């Protein structure tokens, strides 16, 4: 141990613990009381009652098809609104969405019909290659430029 190290070590070891601020204890207890007062469903999943935890998973699994079904119903409703009763804003929004969807479909058809499939596969492959190359470059940058000697913490 060098004299400097010894001196600083001695100084720092003599330092007493810093006192927590006067209101600290009350602050923590208040926070705990707030947490305890929250209903169980607003607390973390691990603090839910066991029965609720067990019920949650099957309900969540059932919720996904229900969500799809609801989305389908809303779409059907919008479609029917488009052809039947005039619903003002909703009808015009449905019409816009429908037009956009139709345009996207036409573009897709055009691409599939006009561009040779070899080009399409090549494009997808190139995109994947560039994506991998980006990761490689990032890794190289981290290794070569952000070496530990230069890194800040």
């Amino acid at each position, binding site marked *: 141990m060098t004299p400097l190290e010894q001196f600083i070590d001695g100084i720092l070891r003599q330092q007493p613990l810093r006192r927590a601020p006067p209101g600290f204890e009350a602050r923590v207890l208040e926070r705990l009381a707030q947490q305890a007062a929250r209903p169980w469903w607003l607390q973390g999943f691990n603090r839910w009652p066991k029965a609720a935890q067990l019920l949650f998973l099957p309900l969540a699994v059932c919720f996904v098809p229900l969500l799809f079904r609801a989305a389908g119903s809303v779409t059907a409703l919008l479609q029917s609104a488009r052809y039947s009763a005039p619903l003002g804003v909703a009808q015009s929004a449905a019409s816009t969405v429908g037009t956009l969807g139709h345009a996207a479909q036409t573009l897709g058809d055009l691409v599939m019909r006009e561009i040779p499939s070899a080009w399409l596969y090549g494009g997808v492959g190139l995109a994947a290659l560039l994506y991998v190359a980006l990761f490689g470059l990032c890794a190289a940058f981290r290794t070569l430029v952000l070496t530990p*000697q230069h890194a800040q*913490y």
Partner: protein
Amino acid sequence: MHLSDDETVQSPPAAGDRNAEFTKFMRKYQDMVYSTAARLSGNDAQAEDIAQEVFLRAHRRFEELRDNPRAAGWLKTVATNLTFTHLTRYRKRWVFFSQLQPQDEDGDAPEHEFAAPDSVTDEVQDDERHEFIEAALRALPDHQRLPLVLFHFEEMPYEEIASRLRVSLPKVKTDIHRARQALAGVLARRGITATQLEA
């Protein structure tokens, strides 16, 4: 029993006795937890937030911690980890700002100045001296204070510090050395020297 800082445990319903015991537990360890967070972060307000989070976690695991001789170690580890998380979260921000600050020839940030009390005498009272040393520590740049605190207060070896801070071993040694030099310089100007320490 193995204690890890990231496990979560179902706590039983709070009772009056349990709260009283937890308050006692908190009184016993709050200064230690706060000191760890404050010295590492160099910021009292952040340290208070971190210490609060430590005790909120401790409350969830109180059944395991209340009579556990390793409770102090667990609290210290959680305080250190949370401070690291906090510092890492703002890392990019302070790297950016640290790059805006002027650097000296060795690439070190310039020495920070802080107000010293007027009553500078040869014989500095203990409390005043302790406060002065804490202020000197806070004034050190982050990249010097962190490894210094980990080495001298947490007794962490150089290798572990390098690994935790994700920097090279030579950099850790250099930073700690410069931190010691900076601290010794500030203390010497205040009249605190090795001779006075021995006396």
